[in-house]
């Protein structure tokens, strides 16, 4: 089956070539004038370090290990995320901790080390899906960069404090994962 190519019938004015060129020039000149009188901040280009794109909901960026309100880690070191991870970038070492604590309430496991190699991670969000405790979330932050490989290995502290101001909580300056629970049950 052949395709009928419809030939555009040019009028004599279009065939002179000068008139269409002038029409094209008027279009480009309109763009030029319009852009000349709009400030650079209002043009289409997002000038990156000063302006940032709005990230859509459900974006998978940098990980965060969630905390309870008292600052205790939600993660129970069940290794589900490590198993689910297709890039094998999560490595967890579990430890037992027996201090009674109001949120967790009884003797439990928690990660002694929890590290994600951000260079390996493919930001697929499988760990978030796998987590039974909603302890690991993927945030909106996409500026994950460093000068060397080692600093791209995010440890437990890094993951618990990734850009914490985005959800309203302050960034904490040191590891406050309580070895002793902050709020013991008031008898």
């Amino acid at each position, binding site marked *: 089956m052949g395709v009928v190519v419809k030939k555009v019938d040019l009028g004599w004015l279009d065939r002179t070539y000068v008139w269409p*060129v002038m029409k094209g*020039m008027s279009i480009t*000149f309109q763009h*030029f004038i319009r*852009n*000349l009188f709009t400030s*650079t901040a209002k*043009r*289409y280009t997002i*000038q990156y370090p000063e302006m940032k794109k709005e990230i859509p909901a459900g974006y998978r960026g940098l990980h965060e290990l969630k905390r309870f309100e008292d600052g205790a880690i939600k993660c129970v070191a069940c290794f589900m995320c490590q198993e689910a991870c297709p890039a094998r970038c999560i490595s967890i070492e579990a430890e037992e901790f027996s201090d009674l604590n109001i949120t967790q309430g009884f003797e439990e496991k928690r990660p002694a080390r929890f590290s994600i190699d951000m260079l390996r991670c493919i930001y697929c969000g499988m760990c978030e899906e796998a987590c039974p405790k909603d302890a690991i979330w993927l945030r909106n932050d996409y500026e994950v960069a460093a000068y060397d490989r080692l600093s791209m290995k995010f440890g437990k502290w890094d993951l618990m404090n990734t850009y914490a101001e985005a959800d309203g909580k302050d960034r904490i300056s040191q590891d406050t994962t309580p070895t002793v629970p902050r709020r013991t049950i008031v008898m």
Partner: protein
Amino acid sequence: MDKLASLLHMTPAIFWMVVKVVIVFSAVMLLASVWTWVERRGSAMIQDRIGPNRAAIFGKIRIIGLAQLLADGIKFFFKEDLVPEEANKGLFWLAPFLAFVPALIGFAVIPFGKDFTSGGVTYHLSVLDPGNGMGLLYPLAIGGMAVYGVLLAAWSSNNKWSILGGMRASAAMVSYEIGMSLAVVTIFMTTGGYDPAEVIKAQGHLPWAWNIVHQPFGFIVFFTCMFAETNRLPFDFAEGESEIVAGFNTEYGSMKFSLLALAEYSHLMTASALVATLYFGGWQVPFVQNPAVMLSVASFLLKMLFFAWVFVWIRWTLPRFRYDQLMHLGWKVMLPLSMANLVFHAWRMSQGH
């Protein structure tokens, strides 16, 4: 002026010449380098982008991206100067100069202002005084030489893409030169002389007496050919990112590349000065019979920069031609058109107009 000349152990004539040469060529080179910025920012605005605006002096003074010129210059200057192993070394070195020098010295005969008399001596505001016997044949001849720079650059780098680019440039050259020359010949004929000063004087100060009104077809042909001559976008066959890598300057880097790029923009300046001189009355100020010298210079600069901007403007409006399309245009459209233009004006002059 005489005192200054004697201080420098020069005769006043030579001193005046040196002053003119320095001012004209540095101005053209400066404008050419500024025009690279105009091209980038202008194209950005035409395409709803922003363009280079971040280069800053000491990391602070941005001056709407003009520091980009400095940054580019410094970068080019300190890049490694590579010459390909198999290149013809001598010609490879020579080619950028052969491209740059003709582009610049074409400006020499063009009067950029009204001549003035001071102390009984008439000073002409063009590097070569009128009556030098070359007139406007000189920029045309020099413009014809400009393709050698491209061709040599292409040939000496011993690269197939380069050679393709050079071949296309020379093929295009053959097809547009005749039409352009005939358009200019028509002006020589109606003026009765080929000296740019005469051409300007004959056009007078009234805009409807300028050559653009009398010879619109000649203008269209000449202006179109100028695009081909300057190797600029609708007709930039010597380069073509999509087809032949970078074309004739594929193997060039560092200062040699920058010289080739600068040659294009100086050529653009010379071409727009030519268009302003031939068709828009040169330094003539519209409706002013005897303009002041500075006013005439400003008028010339304004016209020249306007046409230089039109070069940029058209570049970002039109897509590229195939080079057989330019040859079709050159031989079958522009040559007959300028020929008809010539014949029509010859007939008109024979009728006593």
